[in-house]
């Protein structure tokens, strides 16, 4: 209503110009959405959907938060911008011995963060790591390709269960999703204990169990929350929450980042005469 009011006050020529600009803007917005692959069958709520009617999270996503530097609230320090943290209640509820381990991790973080070896980031760290990831979605699954390491996580949404074998140790966990209305709820388990949750040394054991909830706030924004429990490390389940933004830059795409190859890149110069 405010905008319409300003159109009227702008006078006849101004009004036409404003309307033209508004129309152009709407067209541009449509083009952007089309380019981002977001238009399939937009439902009443205006979010992209698959033909099946389920929300379609296809696209390239990234958080703008400082979560990967430290999940907990922290002031600025040499190796991290300040951040209010993404942990509900601010503090991760460590068991006493685990808290001591976390402190040791923190002290050694500039050398022992597995990220520095370019190892697969794990779940949920890959989601809020400051590099984009792309979701490819079919009815049966969502495929997440992370730019970092180009690692691939499949979230199965076809009614299959976690593997019967219970001693699998996946870097990304085993992900089984189901829909609750327009929210994708993903149960993730069968982890190893090699990954960290952030650069501050927050960690977990093989008992980690993550329940993620993926929900559109609007067509270009995902509300991502996760509950983490691990009876060996935490005294109770705890929650994190980040917002993921769709990359809409022109021609934006993932660029492979097999960063572990940089350690030996020098031995393979481009062949020439």
């Amino acid at each position: 209503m405010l905008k319409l009011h300003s159109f009227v006050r702008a006078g006849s020529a101004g009004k036409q110009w404003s309307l033209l600009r508004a129309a152009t803007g709407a067209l541009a917005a449509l083009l952007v959405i089309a380019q981002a692959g977001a238009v399939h069958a937009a439902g009443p709520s205006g979010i992209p959907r698959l033909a099946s009617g389920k929300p379609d999270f296809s696209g390239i996503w990234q958080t703008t938060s400082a979560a990967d530097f430290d999940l907990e609230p922290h002031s600025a320090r040499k190796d991290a911008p300040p951040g209010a943290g993404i942990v509900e209640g601010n503090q991760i509820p460590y068991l006493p011995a685990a808290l001591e381990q976390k402190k040791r991790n923190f002290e050694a973080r500039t050398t022992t963060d597995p990220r520095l070896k370019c190892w697969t980031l794990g779940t949920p760290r890959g989601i809020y790591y400051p590099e984009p990831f792309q979701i490819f979605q079919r009815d049966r699954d969502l495929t997440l390709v992370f730019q970092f390491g180009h690692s691939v996580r499949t979230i199965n949404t076809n009614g299959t269960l976690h593997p019967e074998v219970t001693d699998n140790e996946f870097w990304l966990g085993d992900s089984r999703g189901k829909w609750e209305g327009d929210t994708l709820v993903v149960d993730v388990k069968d982890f190893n204990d090699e990954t960290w949750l952030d650069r501050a040394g927050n960690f977990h054991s093989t008992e980690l169990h993550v329940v993620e909830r993926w929900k559109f706030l609007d067509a270009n924004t995902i509300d991502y929350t996760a509950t983490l429990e691990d009876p060996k490390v935490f005294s109770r389940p705890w929650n994190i929450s980040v917002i993921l933004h769709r990359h809409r830059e022109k021609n934006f795409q993932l660029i492979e980042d097999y960063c572990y190859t940089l350690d030996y890149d020098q031995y393979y110069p481009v062949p020439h005469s």
Partner: protein
Amino acid sequence: MRIQLSLWALAMLPALAIAQSAGAPPPKPSQGEAIRWEKSFPAIESGKWTGKRLSDGQPDVQGNWANTIANQNNWIDPQAGEPGARPPKTARNERAPSRVSDPADGQVPFQPWARTLQQEFFTNFRNPVKPEYIEPFARCAPGGVPKSFTWHGYEIRQYPGYVLFLFNSGTRIVHLDGKPHLPGSIKLWNADSRGHWEGNTLVVDVTNNNAKARLGRSGEFASDNVHIVERYIFDNGGKRYNYVATITDPTVYTQPWTATIPSRRYGLEQGDEPDGWHYEGEIANRPGKPPMDEYYERICVENNGGFGQVATTQAR
């Protein structure tokens, strides 16, 4: 803890010795084993696609695939074993043809300096006294284009605007979305791929190659000027495709040449069983329903191994 033992171990004698001393049974021959030793393969003509389509109109070629003649050991004599291995007992014409289908002599048309370098890589494969003699693949580098198609089986997933290749080592996103190639200064292990469908044929233009991956253990290579046009020609039965790529690189070769890699589909529905090699699927857990395969994560550098082991932790 489960460890997926690959037939890849066959090429790594010390690793095999360890496996045997640990009491692991020798890998049993499977249907996959038999077919990867095909001596010849059918030509597939480019033409109309009459098979299944996806809702966006693409031919539906999703699923598990693998090459049918041999692994990456030797590019021009695929069934001759790796460099330095015992010479094969068969005559050359009793083994699968060179992956170089043009020129007709089956040789990569190297310039003299490049031939010398390739021979250096070949000769030193088994005794890598310099770091550059170690095939980068053995360090978990992505296989690159086109070598990835001669390694383990892989999965194809398709989406509006994309074809996705999930290899044992590395991931490749083929854009069908009409976006332009990346700027030329960006060089990538798996290069930059822009594709479109012409009937039964996926045509992919491949640039931005970092030229670090080699074509095989036999040491063939290109430079970062290489331009590859791939044609994935699918038969309408959906069971096979031939990968036919024109490879142009005036820095390294005397003329453009053509690579051909025959490939077939693997699936439970056609009687295949996952074998950890050509058919890398796992059986999904869905009680009371027919068996279905699914794909686990691939991990390589983290496990300090030479290929994509799954569901294991060996970093400690």
